């Protein structure tokens, strides 16, 4: 298993009471709550953490993109990846991912990613996403065009990386008389492509068709396993067998001396993450056309279910996160790998309000107690999987 250190870079000093009162930490949570002095310190701590992860032997580091939210301070992740590119000496550098339909000119993403691939001499991983529903409000893009724009932007970027330029591209949304980006990617034909998603069937099918690594965003392990199974079935239909490196599970891990201490330490930060930083008005998340009518109806039906607060115990029990002693964490990670069959773990070591020193201790513990045990570990067939 490859274990990446994944960061969301939350604004950890967010006013949790204000978020509760407003019912959102996204879009309409006023940016007057952002203190640039505290924010600047956080950026430096978070970048230090990712550089530290590389020194500790994590297989890679990863950032992502979200807009107008305390949940994550990376609206332009390329800037942060650029800051990391000369400091990450060993592992991969991944942006998981950039939201292709949110820009009017996806060629800028082809250019940005190609630079990062050159800077890292071929250790860059390119993530492509659609962005989440609320981002069609914050970025002023039409959600009804999201799917089509994503596919067309993807085609444009891949062509920009692989077709000898200059050539013309005449799509429905993007039209360029000249496509001839400098630099070209370092990797041949282009960086590996990861497709993070919350599990929509159309994305799973599309990723399987292109053999892109599918990343399941935060979800209970049972549903992760189910989603990966769907991908494997789609891969079968496309005439090949999917391999573990095509599956990445996005999780959070916290290790301490004992299960009790780990739970005690992690509770306020994990619960702030699950309840406040992830808080958003459901209406924001489902702009028309972004998802199918069936998905919107499913979300509406789930509304009552989602209204209660998540507890740390609940998130641990459902296998959304792994928290505990070294032994517990190793056992669970192995069990979950066997259940779901992934070859990549995208692991957050910081979440919610967790402070710098606690994150570093967690990183050290994971590097010492977890990484060495999983270095070449592949999913083992389980009884359940064999059935």
């Amino acid at each position, binding site marked *: 298993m490859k274990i990446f250190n994944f960061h969301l870079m939350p604004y950890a000093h967010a006013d949790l009471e204000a978020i509760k009162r407003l019912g959102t930490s996204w879009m309409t949570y006023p940016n007057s709550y952002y203190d640039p002095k505290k924010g600047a310190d956080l950026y430096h701590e978070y970048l230090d953490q990712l550089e530290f992860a590389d020194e500790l032997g994590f297989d890679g580091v990863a950032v992502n993109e979200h807009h107008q939210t305390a949940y994550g301070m990376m609206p332009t992740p390329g800037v942060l990846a650029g800051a990391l590119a000369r400091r990450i000496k060993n592992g991969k550098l991944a942006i998981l991912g950039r939201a292709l339909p949110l820009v009017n000119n996806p060629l800028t993403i082809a250019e940005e990613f190609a630079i990062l691939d050159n800077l890292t001499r071929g250790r860059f991983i390119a993530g492509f996403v659609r962005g989440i529903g609320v981002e*069609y*409000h914050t970025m*002023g*893009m*039409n*959600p*009804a*065009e999201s799917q089509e724009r994503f596919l067309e932007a993807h085609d444009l970027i891949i062509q920009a990386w692989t077709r000898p330029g200059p050539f013309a591209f005449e799509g429905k949304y993007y039209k360029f008389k000249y496509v001839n980006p400098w630099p070209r990617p370092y990797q041949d034909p282009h960086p590996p492509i990861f497709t993070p998603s919350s599990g929509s069937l159309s994305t799973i099918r599309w990723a399987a068709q292109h053999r892109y690594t599918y990343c399941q965003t935060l979800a209970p392990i049972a549903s992760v396993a189910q989603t990966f199974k769907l991908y494997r079935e789609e891969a079968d239909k496309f005439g090949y067998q999917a391999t573990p490196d095509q599956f990445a599970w996005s999780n959070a891990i916290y290790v301490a001396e004992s299960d009790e201490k780990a739970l005690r330490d992690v509770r306020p930060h994990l619960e702030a993450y699950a309840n406040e930083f992830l808080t958003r*008005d459901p*209406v*924001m998340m489902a*702009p*028309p*056309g972004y998802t199918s*009518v069936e998905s*919107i*109806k499913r979300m509406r039906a789930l509304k009552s279910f989602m209204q209660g607060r998540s507890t740390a115990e609940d998130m641990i029990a459902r296998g959304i996160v792994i928290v505990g002693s070294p032994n517990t964490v190793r056992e669970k990670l192995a069990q979950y790998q066997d259940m779901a069959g992934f070859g990549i773990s995208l692991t957050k070591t910081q979440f919610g309000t967790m402070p710098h020193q606690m994150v570093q201790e967690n990183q050290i513990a994971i590097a010492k107690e977890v990484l060495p045990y999983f270095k070449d570990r592949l999913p083992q067939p389980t009884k359940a999987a064999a059935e």
Partner: protein
Amino acid sequence: MSPVESFVDLDDCRIKILRAGQGAPLVFLRGADASDDWRPYLDELARRFDVIVPEHPGFGGQPKPKWLDRIADYANFYLDLFDRLELTGVHLAGHGMGGWIAAELATRDTRRIASLTLVDAQGLWLDGVPTLDTFLCTEEKAITDQFHDTKLAEAEIARRLVPDSEDIRLNNQVVIAQTTWQPRGYDPHLRKWLHRIDVPTLIIWGAEDRLLPQAYAQEWGRLIPGAQVEIIAACGHVPPIEKPAEFVSLISAFAAAERAAA
């Protein structure tokens, strides 16, 4: 009076048309409630006009046409429909998004049009006069925001938000987003050509419209040559439903006056 329902196949799509009454043709283009049923104000209009209410392509559970990207596409479609139905002397009226379509249509070609009536129409942006974001609220709130009279809003919610129509409502929303999301509810190019409208034009507006404040009525009136602006008191965004008597009498008097003048 119950309308006659028919279907027309045109431009690779199928639309439903409700039609009732006799007299000069009055085509009514509805707004976001476009899949709503036949309402009393249409009965009243049908006493005086041949009332024709088409359901916009892509609404009512029909697939979204491949050619549909923006409101201007609807305008061209309805010009095709008027040709197909061989309508002449049309009194064209539109509410909300339907008003926007009607205005776009009239900037292109008024040969088949006798008069234009815009009712709390979308389509313009006025600096300093914000509009409500109808995409950032629940369906209940969206209806509440449309009415001045809260009791009427409650009745509309009970009548319209029924499980049977959920699929159609959600599908309609996708088409509404496709055509009106960005820029939100207007086209910056439309105002440049409103001076081309060369038929008598009536602007009807609810004084208490919270989606599109009354200043928008005055702006339409300023931009369309000779337009007459009528504000209905104690009325929200949907005069045909909130003040049907005033609405019908304004539109009827306007058409009659134009006939007398012609």
